C-alpha cells in the first residue's frame, strides 16, 4: 500500500523545549491510524504539522506524495475535538457556508449536503440552529462539515470525548464506514479501547518520542503481557491451602487476596492450568462464586511501555 502520509525524522522545538523528537512513521491509504499518548506526548503538535498549521523544526513531511497548496487542502478534512462551526447558523447553513469555502456549488453542493445529512442522521435538524443541537449531534455536524468536500485524509481529534456509549458506538460505525469507503483516517485519542477497536495501526508517543508502532494486536501481543483468570470464592483461601495448591504438580503462580484468586496464564497450556486450579480449589472444599478472564489490551501495552496509565472508556 502507498503511504499517503510520510513522516520522516520530524522534530519540533518551541524555544528550547523539544516537543517532537525524531518521529518517523508512514500512514497508508485506507488505514485508521491512531496517534496515542498522554497529555504532552506531542500528538497535537504532530497533527498540526501534518495539517500544515505548524512547520517542523527538522525532518520531512510528505502528504499524498508531496502534494501542497489548495490541492492538498481539498484532500484533508479535520474534525476538531471541540465543535467548529457557527452556533448561530442552522445545520444546513453551516454546511452550505463551509462547502462554499471549498468551492462547492449548485447541485454538487446540495447533493453532498443531503448525502452527509442522511448518512449522519442530521436531516431532521436541517433548519435547526446549531446551538440547539445536543452534544452528540453537534459532533456529527462537526464531522459533516469536515467531510463536506469529500477529503481523502480525515483527522479526528478525540472524536468521542464526552459522548454516551450509544453515540460513541455510532461514531465508531461511521468511522469504519469511512474506512470502508477508502478514506484514510488519523485519530488522536486517549481511549485505548477505542484505538484498539478502530485503528488498524497505532503509534505510541511519549514526551515527543515515538515509543512503538504497529497494529493494536501486534502491540498487545508484543507488549500486552499475559492473560489473568480471576476467581471469586465464597470464603477466603487459607495459607495452608494456598501452599498446597502451589505445590501441586501443575505449576501455578497463583496469588490470593482474601477470597479473590489471580491466576496469570501463558498462552500455552492455559486450559490445563485453569481446570487443574478449579479441581484443587473444589477438592479443598471451597465454593467458586464466579470466574472471569482479564485479556491484555493496549492500555496494558501503554502501561508496560511507558509505565503510565491511559484512559479507558467511560
Amino acid at each position, binding site marked *: 500500500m502507498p503511504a499517503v502520509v510520510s513522516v520522516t525524522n520530524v522534530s519540533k522545538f518551541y524555544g528550547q523545549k523539544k516537543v517532537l523528537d525524531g518521529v518517523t512513521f508512514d500512514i497508508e491509504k485506507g488505514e485508521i491510524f491512531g496517534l496515542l499518548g498522554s497529555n504532552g506526548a506531542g500528538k497535537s503538535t504532530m497533527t498540526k504539522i501534518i495539517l*500544515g498549521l505548524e512547520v517542523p523544526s527538522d525532518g520531512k513531511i510528505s502528504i499524498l506524495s508531496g502534494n501542497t*497548496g*489548495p490541492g492538498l487542502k481539498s484532500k484533508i478534512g*479535520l474534525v476538531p475535538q471541540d*465543535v*467548529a462551526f457557527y452556533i448561530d447558523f442552522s445545520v444546513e447553513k453551516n454546511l452550505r457556508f463551509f462547502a462554499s*469555502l471549498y468551492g462547492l456549488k449548485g447541485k454538487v453542493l446540495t447533493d453532498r449536503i443531503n448525502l452527509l445529512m442522511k448518512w449522519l442522521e442530521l436531516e431532521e435538524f436541517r433548519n435547526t440552529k446549531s446551538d440547539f443541537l445536543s452534544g452528540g449531534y453537534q459532533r456529527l455536524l462537526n464531522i459533516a*462539515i469536515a467531510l463536506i468536500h469529500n477529503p481523502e485524509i480525515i483527522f479526528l481529534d478525540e472524536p468521542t470525548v464526552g459522548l454516551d456509549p450509544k453515540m460513541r458506538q455510532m461514531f465508531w460505525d461511521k468511522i469504519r464506514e469511512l474506512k470502508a469507503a477508502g478514506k484514510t483516517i488519523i485519530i488522536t485519542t486517549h481511549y485505548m479501547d477505542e484505538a484498539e477497536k478502530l485503528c488498524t495501526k497505532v503509534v505510541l508517543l511519549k514526551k515527543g518520542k515515538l515509543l512503538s508502532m504497529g497494529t493494536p494486536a501486534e502491540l498487545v501481543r508484543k507488549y500486552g503481557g499475559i492473560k489473568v483468570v480471576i476467581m471469586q470464592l465464597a470464603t477466603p483461601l487459607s495459607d495452608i491451602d494456598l501452599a498446597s495448591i502451589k505445590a501441586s504438580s501443575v505449576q501455578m503462580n497463583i496469588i490470593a487476596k482474601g477470597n479473590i484468586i489471580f491466576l496469570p496464564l501463558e498462552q500455552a497450556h492455559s486450559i490445563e492450568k485453569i481446570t487443574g486450579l478449579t479441581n484443587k480449589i473444589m477438592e479443598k472444599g471451597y465454593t467458586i462464586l464466579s470466574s472471569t478472564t482479564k485479556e491484555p489490551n493496549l492500555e496494558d501495552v501503554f502501561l508496560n511501555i511507558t509505565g503510565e496509565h491511559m484512559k479507558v472508556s467511560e
Partner: protein
Amino acid sequence: MRLLEIIWKEISLIKAQKVALLLIFLYPFIAIALLGSAFTGLEPQKMTNINAGVVNDLSFDSNIIGELSQYKEIKLTEYGDANKLLDAIKKKEVIVGVRISGATKNDQLKVDLYYDNSNLMASRFFLEIAKAVMQRITIEATQQKLKGIFTTVNGLEGTLTSEVNNIKEFQAKLNTAGSKIDKLEKDLNAINFDEIKTILSEQQSNLDSLEQKTADFKTKFSTFKTSFNKAKSDLGSIEPQILLYQSQLKTTSTSLASTISSLDQSISQLESISPYIPAEQKASFDSSLSSMRTQEQLLKDWNSTLNSSITSMDSALTSLDGLDTSMKDAESMMVTLETDEAALETSLTSANTALENMNSKLTVFSESVEEVHLLISDARLYKEDISEKLGTSLTMLSSFSDEISNISAISPVVLAQPVVFYENKAFNVDPFGILVANATVVVLILTCMLLTAIVVILERNQNVTLRMTLCTTHKMVLLFGKIIGQLILALIEATIIFIVAFTNIPLPAPIMGFTKIGFGLVASFSIIELYFAVIIIALAFISIGMIISLFAKNQSTAILSSLLLIVPMLFLSGIILPVEFMEPFMRMVSEFLPLTLANNLLIGVIVKGASLAEMGVEVIALLFITFITVIIVLLKDDTRE
C-alpha cells in the same frame, strides 16, 4: 457572609482575566494621563498662538494690526482680502479671521469676524477670544484717546503757563525799555542848546578873523620866505666859494708859472743837446721838442687866463657886500611876520578852546543819539521778539482750539462701544450637520472596530478560524469577505443615520411632542462622495478591529482593547472636546488619529461640501491605515499553502 463571598467571587473572576485586569488598571491611567496632558491648556488665559487671520481694509488705522500681533494669545497672519481669509479658514490654516472693514457713522470700528463653523464648540470659543482681544485693543484705543485728551489738557495747561511766562518776559523787557528811555530823556534834557549856539557863534567870529589873518600871513610869509631863502643862499655859499676858488686859482697860477719855467729850462737843455742827436733820431727828437714848446705855450696861455679870473673874483666879492645889505632887510621883514604869526596863534588857540568845548558838548549829544539808536534797535528787537512770541501764542491758541474741536468731535458712543462686531460663518451649514458627521464616525468606530474584533475572536473561539485556515479559499478572499461583510453593516448604519438626519416627513399628528420624522438637514454635498467617505472610514476602522483581534485572546480582551483605543481617540479627536484646546504636541498627535481623520473627512464632506479630492490628506491617511493593517493581518496569518 454570603454577600462577602459573592463580592470576593466577583473580584476573583476579574483577577483571573490577566489582560482584562491589566487593561482595567490601564484605563484610569490612560484617561487621566491623556486628558491631563492633552487639555492642560483649557484655561483661556493660558492659551497662546491661536492661529488667526486678519484683513485690513483700512489704511487709517493699520496700527490695530500691529496691536493685534502683540497679543500672545494670537498668532496673526495677514491676508489680502476676505476671500483669501475664508479660504485659509476652510483649509484650517487659521481658526478665526478678523476683517477691519470700516467705521460706523458714530466712528465705531466695524469688525467682521469670520470663523470655522464646522466645529461646534471650538470656533465659538475662539470667536469670543478674538472678540475679547479686539475689544481689549479697542478699549485700549479708547483709553489711549482719553489719555490723549488728558495729555492735551495737560499740554494746554503747560501752554498757558508758558504764555504767562512769555507775558511776564514781555513785561520785564518793557520795563527795561522804559528805564532806558528815562535815562535817554534825562540825557537829552542835559543838553544846553543855547550855550551851544553862543559858542558856535563866537567860534564862527573867531574863525572868520582867523581866516583873514591867516590869508595875510600866508601872503607875507610866502614873499618873505622866498626872498630870504634866496638871499641867504646866495650870501652863504657864493662868497666863500669865490674866495676858495680865488685862492686855488692863485695857487694854481703860481704852480703853473713854476711849471712853465721848468719846462722852459728843459727845452733849452734839449735845444742845447740837439746837435748831438744822431741823424736817424733827429726827426723824432725835433718833433718831441716841438711838442714840448707847444705845451709850454699852452701853459702860458692858461696861466694868463687864471690871472684874469682872479681879477674878476675880486670884483665879485665887492658885489657880495651889497647883497649882505639886502639880507638885513629881509631879516627885518621876518620880525614883522613873527609878530603877525603870534597874533594868529592867539586867535587860533581861542578858536580851538571854543571848538573843544563845543566838541565836548557834541560828544555828549552824540552818545545820547547813539543811545537813542540803540534804544531804537532794542525796541525793534523787542518788537520782533514780541511779535514772534505772539505768533507762537497764536499758534498755540489755534492748536488748543483744534484739540478742543477734536475732543468735542469724539462721540461718547465710540468711547462706550468702540467696536461693532459682525459675525460671518465660513460655511453655510446647519450646525446639526456637524452632529451628523460626529455621530456617524462614532457609530462607525464603535461598530466597525468593536464588531470586527469581536467577530474574529468569536470565530476563533468557535474553531471556525481553524476550519477557514484549512479550506481551499485563499486567505485574501477570506479577509476581504470579512471586511466587505463588516463594510455592508457599516453602510447600513450610516444610512440609518443619514435617513434620520436628512429626511423631513411631517406627522399627521404630534407623537410624544414630535411633529415630523427626521431632522430635515439640507444636503449640500454629493451623496456618492459621502458614501465613498463612509466606505474609506469604515475600512480603516474594520482593519484596526482586525489588528486588535490578532492580539486579543478573548472577546472581553478584544472589547477592552478596542475601548482602549476608542475612548482616548474620542477625547482627542475633537468630537467631544475641541482639539484646539490641546497642547501643541497632543494636537499634532490628534491629527494622526484615525478617528480625527475620519471626523475631519465627514465634516469636510457633509458640512463643507468638500469633494474627496479636496479632503485628499484624510482620504490618503485612512487608506494608508487600511493598507498597512491589512498587510499586517495577512502577514500574521501563518497558514501553510
